[in-house]
């Protein structure tokens, strides 16, 4: 079993195989597959109502694993796809059922299209759509919510993550590498045997859930087994071909001797590879992996399982993969069965797999709000182990190399730089940053461990944590942390300034907190905003809990639950409080913008009395028409966030602390609590688009600030001032903050400059920074890319917690990125 295949091409760098796989991936269009929906609909039609929900879901998953098309591509070593082929995305009608119009739009739109044939659309209309009418999660939610909630939602005061997708943001710990699914199943059966039906009133529920988990184990094993069969079949076919070749050669039909030998030997290699693939798929995930290849394939099957049973939001994630795979790498290298290059090739194959998984297409507000085409997998490397020691190892460096060579959309990469992480590792990371693809982003374990411990995790579990998708952190393999949606803090100010009315929709969305023209002091204004903010947070929370229950009742994740402690021990689902830790996040957006707005009003209206409130409000209402001088005065003469200016920074700290107080500590339905998060993904663009002009001189419908970054062009004192401003927030109170910094390439020209950037990062982390990321690209390049998109097909740019192709972005998002403050060399 322990043989590895030595391929002649297999030498350093990105080898030919990986080059081909990468190119293939790049050239494959994204398509929509109706296969999963058809299998599921048929299954539901026959079985709905005949069994408990967990068992129904598990058997549904089993059915999909049993019937879906299996794919093994040429050149592949790591196998398995979510759809029938690479970049074919299934739909999940039990959550959201796309309408015929949705499908047509997806098929024909310019940006981020999903190709689907007319035939498939017709089948969908006939077979799938009628069955799900009124039964989808989405309809359940929208039928329940109050008018107030719905109006605020449609006006863009907040978004709702779980209205059309399952919760995601899940990352794995290392348990799958020590335990096969057969072992897991044995554990489940033992738990079932222990159930006490007399004294435990929940025993029946637990039994059903555990039975469902056991079925899920079988499903994944079957899925792998089918890959083994296919690989074997392909090997046999190749062998037949070779025999034919040989006999032709013997008959002298083929005169070109050398081409025959080349072809023959490469076919021979492929046969060996396919046989190995078959062996691997027979062994994992049923048993614990024994070598690097099996370990990687193990992860990939687990990954596919979770994204097949439900379409969790971004970021099913292997967690600290460099730590998890280390024992396999070390052993393989020691006993001579694995070389560094082979390890790199296998990992590269996995990398390509990540990039083969576009996100299931979204609809409605979520499609506007989330401009992401791929689901995020944010690979965590470096950081610390459970004992707190620096964990960067040779694999971490290999992964950096792969990331630089492949520079695909996914996976994303983050390097985790604790105080005890060697500088060498940080510098290697910065070298990749210098390439300008927007990754890796950089995280500070010393801060996020504090965040996680503050939320109630044990120190060891916190150390094992990290970031799953953008910047949000959790205890890997032990936590169900649901991100539930973004809160538009500047929009809430807009509503406050209009006494509860949203000027964009004309509807009364908020409370009547008084006409701001009557406010005598800045404190009155702030209090009014605060009241509105608490009102909207409560409005959102009231529905969050309902949605959580809907998932628990209708869409439990019985496969994912196998891998999240302590679902099996508790006999409870991931969505029902089975996890050891259960957090619900609301992500607040626009801290920079709202701080600047408050600073403007405080200084110019209440203190200097340069303008009256009425003048400012009228100017905003007219989108600064006729008020350009006022707008520019405000832009140029107001203390803004991100300049290490106490005037603005104190406002930011106050807003942030009040958001924490409003959100933190409310009970969710899973025995856990709500917490604040500060990521924005692309939502700051959507939120800006629904928000009129704001007092800080921002034009109507332009993006608001992202994450915790300063608002566009407001930070004029360089990156050190930015990190000092950010350092004033107690970041341990959130589940993540996000800081985007744009540098021109000139700032990283010399090796010495990279060291200096390293110091900047270290200093920010000393101030308690959670995360920082850099876009190394100059404005001229971006403008040119807008003009000549085809010359910049692979221009990757950091957006928020992820990078994306510049060409795939809406013009609005492109402009937003161009408007970010560019730090030049001085």
């Amino acid at each position, binding site marked *: 079993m322990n043989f590895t295949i030595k391929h002649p091409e297999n030498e350093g760098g990105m080898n030919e195989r990986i080059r081909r796989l990468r190119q293939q991936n790049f050239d494959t269009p994204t398509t929509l597959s109706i296969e999963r929906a058809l299998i599921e609909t048929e299954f539901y039609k026959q079985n709905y109502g005949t069994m408990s929900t967990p068992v129904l879901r598990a058997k549904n998953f089993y059915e999909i694993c049993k019937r879906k098309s299996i794919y093994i591509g040429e050149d592949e070593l790591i196998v398995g796809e979510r759809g029938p082929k690479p970049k074919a995305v299934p739909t999940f009608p039990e959550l959201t059922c796309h309408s015929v119009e949705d499908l047509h739009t997806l098929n024909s739109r310019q940006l981020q299209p999903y190709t689907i044939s007319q035939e498939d659309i017709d089948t969908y209309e006939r077979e799938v759509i009628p069955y799900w009418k009124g039964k989808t999660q989405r309809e359940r939610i929208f039928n329940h919510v109050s008018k107030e909630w719905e109006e605020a939602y449609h006006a863009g005061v907040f978004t709702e993550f779980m209205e059309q997708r399952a919760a995601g943001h899940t990352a794995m710990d290392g348990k799958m590498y020590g335990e096969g699914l057969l072992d897991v199943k044995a554990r489940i059966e033992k738990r079932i045997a222990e159930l006490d039906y007399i004294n435990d009133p929940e025993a029946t529920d637990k039994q059903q859930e555990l039975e469902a988990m056991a079925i899920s184990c079988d499903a994944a094993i079957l899925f792998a087994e089918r890959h083994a069969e296919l690989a074997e079949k392909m090997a046999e076919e190749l062998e037949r071909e070779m025999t034919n070749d040989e006999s032709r050669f013997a008959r002298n039909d083929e005169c070109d001797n050398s081409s025959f030998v080349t072809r023959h030997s490469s076919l021979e290699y492929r046969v060996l590879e396919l046989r190995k693939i078959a062996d691997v798929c027979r062994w994992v995930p049923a048993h614990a992996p024994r070598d690097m290849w099996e370990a990687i394939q193990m992860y990939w099957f687990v990954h596919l399982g979770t994204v097949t049973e439900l379409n969790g939001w971004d970021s099913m994630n292997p967690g600290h993969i460099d730590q998890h795979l280390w024992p396999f790498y070390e052993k393989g290298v020691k006993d001579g069965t694995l070389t560094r290059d082979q390890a790199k090739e296998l990992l590269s194959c996995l990398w390509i797999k990540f990039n083969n998984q576009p996100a299931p297409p979204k609809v409605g507000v979520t499609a506007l709000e989330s401009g992401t085409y791929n689901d995020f997998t944010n690979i965590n490397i470096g950081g610390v182990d459970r004992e707190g020691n620096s964990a960067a190892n040779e694999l971490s460096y290999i992964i950096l190399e792969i990331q630089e060579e492949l520079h695909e959309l996914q996976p994303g990469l983050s390097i985790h730089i604790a105080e005890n992480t060697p500088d060498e590792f940080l510098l290697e990371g910065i070298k990749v940053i210098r390439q300008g693809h927007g990754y890796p982003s950089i995280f500070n374990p010393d801060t996020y461990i504090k965040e996680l411990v503050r939320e109630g995790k044990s120190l060891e579990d916190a150390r094992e944590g990290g970031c799953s998708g953008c910047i949000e952190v959790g205890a890997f393999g032990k936590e169900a942390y649901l991100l539930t949606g973004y809160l538009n803090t500047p929009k809430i100010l807009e509503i406050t300034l209009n006494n509860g009315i949203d000027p964009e929709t004309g509807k009364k969305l908020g409370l009547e907190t008084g006409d701001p023209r009557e406010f005598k002091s800045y404190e009155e204004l702030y209090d009014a905003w605060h009241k509105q903010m608490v009102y909207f947070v409560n409005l959102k929370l009231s529905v969050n809990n309902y949605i959580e229950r809907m998932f628990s009742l209708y869409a439990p994740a019985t496969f994912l639950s196998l891998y999240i402690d302590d679902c099996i021990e508790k006999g409870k689902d991931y969505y029902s409080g089975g996890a050891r830790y259960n957090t619900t996040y609301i992500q607040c957006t626009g801290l920079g913008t709202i701080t600047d707005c408050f600073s403007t009003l405080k200084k110019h209206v209440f203190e200097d009395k340069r303008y009256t409130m009425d003048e400012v409000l009228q100017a905003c209402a007219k989108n600064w028409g006729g008020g350009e*001088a006022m707008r*520019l005065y405000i832009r*140029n003469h107001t203390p803004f966030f991100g300049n290490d200016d106490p005037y603005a920074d104190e406002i930011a700290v106050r807003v942030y602390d009040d958001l924490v107080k409003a959100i933190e500590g409310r009970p969710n339905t899973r025995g856990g609590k709500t917490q604040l998060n500060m990521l924005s993904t692309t939502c700051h663009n959507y939120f800006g688009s629904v928000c009129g002009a704001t007092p800080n001189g921002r034009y109507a419908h332009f993006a608001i600030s992202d994450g915790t970054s300063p608002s566009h062009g407001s930070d004029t004192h*360089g990156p*050190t001032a930015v990190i000092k401003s950010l350092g004033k927030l107690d970041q341990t109170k959130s589940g993540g903050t996000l800081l985007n910094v744009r540098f021109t390439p000139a700032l990283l020209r010399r090796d010495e*400059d990279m060291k200096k950037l390293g110091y900047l990062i270290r*200093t920010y982390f*000393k101030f308690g920074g959670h995360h920082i990321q850099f876009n190394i690209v100059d404005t001229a390049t971006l403008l040119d890319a807008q003009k000549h998109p085809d010359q910049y097909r692979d221009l990757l740019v950091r957006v928020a917690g992820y990078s994306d192709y510049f060409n795939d972005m809406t013009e609005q998002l492109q402009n937003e990125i161009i408007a970010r403050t560019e730090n030049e060399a*001085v």
Partner: protein
Amino acid sequence: MKPFENGCSPLTVFDIKRYAINDGPGIRTTIFLKGCPLRCVWCHNPESWLPKPEILFKQQKCIGCNTCGIHPHQREMLTRMTNDESRFARNDECELPSNLESDSYSSSVTRHSSFVTRHSSFVTRHSSFDIRHSSFDIRHSSFDIRHSSFDIRHSSFKDCPTLALEMCGRDYTVEELLAEIEKERDIMIDSGGGVTISGGEPLFGMTHDQSRFARNDECALSSDMESDSYSSLVTRHSSFVTRHSSFVIRHSSFVIRHSSFVIRHSSFVIRHSSFVISYSSS
């Protein structure tokens, strides 16, 4: 003992740049002092020439809103008088001597020539006098008279919404300057960086009040300096000044008459810099 207690005149700073990574080792804070004895044609920051705050007018930023109340005609004059960075934009990239002679810059130079000429005559006059500072200062004030007609409107320039009219340069007391430096202390120390004094010609700006320095000389360079947490800065700082002076000297070879002036001043400044630093600890 506080060496500057007797009232040291402030230093005129025209810019403070944080995260300066090209001005010496580590991450630095660069303080640009205003004032320079030279009037090089290729100067990148001519607004740093005068050793006192002055109003700059950047025409391309002006939206003609008239908030400042300055007559358009006068704004026009201001454009000619003061400096527009963009016109010099690329000058700093050139190899100085060759470009000067190869004339590839002629259009920009010509466009600017009236200004440059006016200034050069000033420089010429100035240099013949600069053995004695007092006479220089006299000269200087006459130059400023030309500016003064605009100074009258200082009261309204602050209202300019676009910063088309902007005060270039601000007087900082040593305490204020140290407070600015203090903001960056963490990152400077972590990165082995420090403070870089630049200009203008820092030696020029820093010495324009001789009496102040005379008094400072009397204070012994205190032993504070050595026990001081800022001492690493001192070394770096003075070495930088030294390096910087050699740079100035290179310049001076083009303006030969200036060289003696500059060299003499550099020794002054090194003493001064120790002071700034020792002060921080007291």
